[in-house]
């Protein structure tokens, strides 16, 4: 929470500096803009960063950490859009869940993360591998959701289905729609 706020403040400051700079450089050459064009909404348009990372900490412990090729922050919605991201969810037992995907949206208020595009998660504790088209990390519930065709492989067990919801360890899961669990043998 602490760092989220500080991240937000930093982003807001950056935004103000950029907006101020733009105004400074443009005011000499352009006629005064109409009142309509100076709406706050336009001033607070999304700001893009490259190679940024966002970290959530609680009581000095990392909760999650996200890095991406680019981050687009929208101060109005408090949401950050990430492209080609890598995320790490830190668990209470010291293990972690490594996530990669093409797109993600982080709600800096709720700390929920919505992900899309070739999602792949690997658990460090047992080597479980999870793949899906879309995924969601619900921070408050500490629950993980997947959709668009999911696969979870752990040891000799393969779980597939349309949708999944599970705990942060992905040990207790509920699979909905064409649910299938294969234990032993080889994948079909």
């Amino acid at each position, binding site marked *: 929470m602490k760092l989220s706020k500080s991240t937000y403040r930093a982003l807001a400051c950056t935004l103000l500096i950029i907006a101020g700079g733009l105004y400074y450089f443009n005011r000499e050459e352009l006629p005064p803009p109409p009142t309509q064009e100076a709406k706050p909404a336009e001033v607070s348009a999304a700001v893009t960063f490259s190679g940024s990372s966002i970290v959530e900490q609680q009581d000095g412990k990392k909760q999650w950490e996200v890095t991406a090729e680019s981050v687009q922050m929208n101060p109005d919605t408090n949401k950050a859009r990430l492209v080609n991201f890598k995320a790490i969810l830190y668990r209470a037992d010291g293990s972690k869940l490594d996530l990669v995907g093409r797109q993600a949206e982080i709600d800096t208020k709720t700390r929920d993360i919505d992900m899309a595009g070739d999602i792949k998660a690997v658990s460090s504790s047992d080597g479980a591998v999870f793949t899906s088209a879309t995924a969601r990390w619900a921070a408050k519930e500490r629950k993980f959701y997947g959709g668009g065709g999911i696969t979870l492989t*752990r040891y000799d*067990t393969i*779980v597939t*289905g349309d949708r999944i919801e599970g705990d942060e360890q992905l*040990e*207790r*899961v*509920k*699979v*909905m*729609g*064409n*649910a*299938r*669990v*294969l*234990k*032993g*043998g080889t994948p079909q």
Partner: protein
Amino acid sequence: MSRKLATALLAALLLVMIAAATAVSAPADKPVELTADTIEYDAKTGVMTAQGAVKLVRDKAVLTGANARYNTKSKEAYVSGSVKVVREDTTLTANEVRSYNDNYLVATGSALLTKGENSLAGPKIEHWVDRQYSLVPNNARLTMPDGWMTANRVEAFHTEDRAVADGDVHIVSDKRSLDATSDKAVYYGSKTEQGKVVMSGNARAVQEGNVLTGKTLTIYLDDKAMDAQGRPKLVVKPQ
């Protein structure tokens, strides 16, 4: 080397050999596949709970039903709602089926086991896959190609095509115009030998109005012949 030490080493060696032999001979777990509309799976406990169009496949057996719970560690399964178990030429249907160690099945609620031309029915059927043995502990009904038999209890030995009925045995064959009763009966349906039913204990058979009684009655399935032993008595109906 002292004698005690030598004995201890020999014992340890034997233990290692036994452990190795056990490991080699332990049967590998067969894959288990569970499909359904919804499955909840707990990797820690190994428990899978499924709802809607459930299908559980293991080895040569296929279980279907509305709901199921399977413990991959204890190998116990519980399937309910129009349950059907198919394994090779044997089909078991019931309202509920519990399975233990992927071998022992207990079917309850309108249970019906069909194998080849014969079927066994009752409120409860217990079936052992490895022994190809079934037991209907009460209100059993065995249906054969040319008739049916009811009894308090029926055991079926499927590989031998043999069934043993106990208590209030009643056999009816419309094809043979036969109605017979006894305390006990053994049905031999083998195709390789002559099929027959051996009825014992207060045996009584009525065929086309003729009444045959005796300690033991043997009804041959291939023809209309009957043998009676133990002070037999035949009462012939006048034509």
